[in-house]
């Protein structure tokens, strides 16, 4: 691909990023969720999936959806450095999306976790997968994390017993800004890993194939009457 000089200047430098190997999680419903890295060519379906949640204020879905939309668009257009997107899909239907990036070889920045299919701990599993990628595959030392909703605060700060970096503000602050920064250090991760991170590898080829192409969710519990509206 030929890039003009200006475009080269606008694109951030990229660090080497080890690929995240796909895994398979059997949810409490018995459904099989493939967790894998999304590809840039899947941006359209990811954005289409996020879009309806921009108008869902409950549980701060609107904030998370809006910021994730811009993150993925920025990733697609090469405006965010060292970013990765993981997607959870059940037979190809998107159940959740997480975004994250490397700030440096040592420090990861957890961006957002968007649960679409609720009630099955999809978000918890995708967040755990994101931490697994940062600490086990990208071999980083710690991940900076913030929460923008009470659910996020409970799931990450409390359940992972994250270390607060508030005392080092403003020298240490998460790039999403505004809220206190917490950190998942390698030590903390090793303590909770067995209870939080799960999944089977390698994923059988036919199941990986079933997760491609991705499909927009058939229903959003966050959006009233979404199923009816879709079929009307």
């Amino acid at each position, binding site marked *: 691909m030929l890039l003009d000089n200006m475009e080269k200047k606008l694109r951030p430098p990229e660090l080497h990023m080890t690929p995240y190997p796909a895994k398979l999680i059997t949810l*409490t419903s*018995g459904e099989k969720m493939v967790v894998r890295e999304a590809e840039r060519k899947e941006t359209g379906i990811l954005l289409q999936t996020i879009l309806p949640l921009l108008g869902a204020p409950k549980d701060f879905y609107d904030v998370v959806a809006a910021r994730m939309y811009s993150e993925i668009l920025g990733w697609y257009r090469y405006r965010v450095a060292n970013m990765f997107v993981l997607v959870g899909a059940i037979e190809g239907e998107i159940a959740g999306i997480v975004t994250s990036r490397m700030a440096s070889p040592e420090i990861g920045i957890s961006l957002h976790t968007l649960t679409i299919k609720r009630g099955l701990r999809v978000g918890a599993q995708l967040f755990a997968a994101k931490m697994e990628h940062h600490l086990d595959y990208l071999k980083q030392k710690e991940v900076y994390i913030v929460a923008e909703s009470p659910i996020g605060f409970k799931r990450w700060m409390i359940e992972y017993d994250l270390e607060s970096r508030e005392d080092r503000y403003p020298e240490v602050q998460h790039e999403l800004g505004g809220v206190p920064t917490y950190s998942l250090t390698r030590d903390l991760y090793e303590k909770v890993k067995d209870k939080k991170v799960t999944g089977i590898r390698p994923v059988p080829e036919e199941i990986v194939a079933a997760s491609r192409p991705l499909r927009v969710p058939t229903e959003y519990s966050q959006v009233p009457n979404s199923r009816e509206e879709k079929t009307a």
Partner: protein
Amino acid sequence: MRKVAVVGIGHTRFGNLSDYNLVDVMAMASLDAMEDAGITEERTLIDQLFVANMGGGIINHQTGIASALVSRIAMEPTPAELIENGPASGASAVKLGYMAVKSGMADLVMVTGGELMRAVTGWKGTDFVATLLHPDVEYRYGLTLPAFGGMFTRLYMERYGLTERDLALVAVKDHANGAKNPFAHVQNECTMEGIYDGPNAEVVNNYVAEPLRLYSMCPVSDGAASLLLCATDSPLYERFKKRAGIVISGIGSATDTHCVHNRKDPLDLEAVRISAERAYQNACLTASDISFAELHDAFVILEIAISEEIGLFRKGEAKNAIAEGATKVTGSMPINTSGGLKAKGHPVGATGVSQVYELVKQLRQEAEEGRQVADPVHGIAVNFGGFGNNVVTTICSKEFA
């Protein structure tokens, strides 16, 4: 003695209703019950309102809820009182409504129970429920109801050979029912592979209060339910013929020691047994007459233990019945056809009223497809307060059974 019929039933969806306030939620269920009974425009015919709520003063910073509800649904000058009896508040309100009608003091009574627990964090919600424990010898040491549930389960396992797999079977059955109940908080089915047998079950169904896991516990819910009770010998009863035909045939309650450690045997749920005996006696029935049951499974172990204590199964044998499918909707003794507290949810003040709502719905044969019991005649509900220290049992029957 006059009979007490249930002539109207109302229910909100259980779950996260944080867009509304507590009295709004109670009003929704109350108006639903009035509509069901066909007296929305004649609501001042109601002689008395009993309101069940446990935590309005603590978690919603609101007291005087009965008066507020009367005004919210334009029922002045109807008398109204609030009943707080821990997680058994709902059935206690039903009992007082029953007593008011039975005694002749009232002909038509509304009973509404509601709770808005998600107004606070899960920890604050758990702490609020724990205020029913002894302040000096239980609460002070960090005990919570899930902790009691865990300890009770462990002891039960040791004595009767119950396994975590048995607990998971209860959850699967309850979620299958809840998935078909439009009012249930959790309408997702779960499978044995997902919560117990599968390779990821340890993580996706994590321990909360060992040996109780996530799928062994009820969710924290908002919601309300409402009933209209009418004397069958009242001239008013004629108005309700369309929705009549179901009576409260028996009701009983009992208490036990405030502290569990003061009981001779912590596995002996004496208040459950005695309240059921009183209800059976009141109804002139025995456990063998019961067609189905709604039991207070805040922790799935309680569905098992209560079902034995009220005589549906012998001690230690409920697990066999569950494994054989006897407690499914299609089984010989369907339990928690609503999804139970496990899947339907547990807004504490609403639960006892909601259980009776389910008895009536089943007896009317109006339950949704897939969760209707075949030809039920008598249904029993057990609402369990504290850790078994205040229990109310209600039996509803077809009027001419």
